[in-house]
């Protein structure tokens, strides 16, 4: 048997009740696909939305206490500015004074956009070009189509380089795909389709692993599989 660090089945009645209520809620949700939409499903869905919102508020407030309120109380008076800006966000709800809420949004948008714009080009453009044109070193046939290719994986190197050339040509958006460029863009779309195929395969692995865990939970509560 595969050794899994099994947690003992609880003896405390409240914990056992917890396991069964969790199972009931799971079956309530899956009654939608496995049967049809029904009141029990809607009840369970609204329970989740309420719980998620309550957690969100409590955890955010706890973090706010640590990072803003306690420092303010212990003398860091500069902290009053972000707290006031935070309150300005709520002017979004007052149509006539909505412009007040634009200043805190400006700081949020300015900081995240500024950071995103500055830090994106290096890893997402420059490093990608460098990696595409770096020839494979001999002996590093780590993911070779032909394992143990003595001179390094030139097949994969050419595949990626030519693929990037065609796919980038496909994404030229203000020039028509006509004349000699046409076959290159058609090939580019096929490279993109292959990528979406692999993406589809990995998405299925992700979704099925999640659903498998739920199936295991059913068996765990019934005591057929260790917790």
């Amino acid at each position, binding site marked *: 048997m595969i050794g899994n660090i099994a947690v003992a089945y609880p003896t405390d009645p409240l914990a056992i009740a*917890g396991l069964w209520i969790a199972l009931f809620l799971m079956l309530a949700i899956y009654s939608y696909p496995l049967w049809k939409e029904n009141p029990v499903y809607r009840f369970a869905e609204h329970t989740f939305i309420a*719980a998620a919102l*309550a957690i969100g508020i409590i955890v955010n407030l706890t973090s706010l206490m640590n990072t803003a309120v306690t420092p303010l109380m212990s003398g860091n008076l500069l902290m009053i500015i972000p707290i006031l800006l935070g309150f300005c966000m709520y002017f979004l709800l007052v149509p006539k004074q909505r412009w007040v809420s634009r200043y805190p949004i400006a700081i949020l948008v300015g900081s995240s956009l500024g950071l995103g714009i500055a830090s994106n080009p290096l890893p997402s453009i420059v490093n990608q070009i460098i990696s595409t044109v770096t020839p494979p070193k001999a002996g590093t046939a780590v993911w070779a189509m032909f394992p143990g290719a003595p001179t390094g994986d030139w097949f994969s190197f050419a595949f990626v380089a030519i693929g990037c050339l065609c796919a980038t040509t496909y994404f030229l958006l203000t020039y028509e795909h006509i004349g000699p460029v046409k076959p290159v863009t058609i090939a580019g779309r096929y490279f993109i389709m292959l990528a979406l195929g692999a993406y589809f395969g990995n998405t299925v692995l992700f979704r099925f692993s999640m659903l498998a865990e739920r199936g295991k939970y059913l068996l765990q509560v019934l005591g057929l599989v260790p917790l």
Partner: protein
Amino acid sequence: MSQIYKREMVFIVTGVVALVMMLDYFFGKNIPGISGAGNISSTLQTWALIIQLMAIGLGAINLIQVHYRQISRKTNMAVYSAWFMGFFALLLLLGFYKLATGVELYPYTWIFKNVYVSLGTTLYAITGFYIFSAAYRAFRARNIDAAILLIGGIFVLLANAPIGEVIWGGFPLIGNWFNNVGQVPGMRTFTVVGALGLLAFGFRALIGKERGFYSEVQ
């Protein structure tokens, strides 16, 4: 004149904050006062942090408004909205007790461990069902694009599943090659094109040509 602080000033603030972030990123340690703990960019990032923390209330108010409207209009969803309000209020009280006293009451732990965890994992995994039924009825190679996608997908599926190797040694070899190399041209181009798109979108937002953020800005 009065419109200035309603629109132009906002763009100036956005632009200045963005500029500080860019200077910090590129020239950080060489310009005194910009980079490092306690300097301008760190302070602005701390302000952004606190504003985000306080913004959670907006989401709560919006959701409570939606459900209040359901109750006041006595729609068919009214009973669920009433349950939402009641359960939300109960959890919030338990949470405030923990916030105030630092003591986590047993009902609080019990609800999160058994109610929240189960519902979260269950709702998130529901897509697995839809993928499976769509595969039976809709994933068809109706054109070359869909054919390449499905063939690539099948090879990766049989490379990810251990049984693929048992059936034929070629599945892990070709499937893993698709995963490690085959998908890279497409994915890498998405990355590069997406990054260029973000630069364009960011530039338009910084010069005030992107109206999504400020909802009312004409």
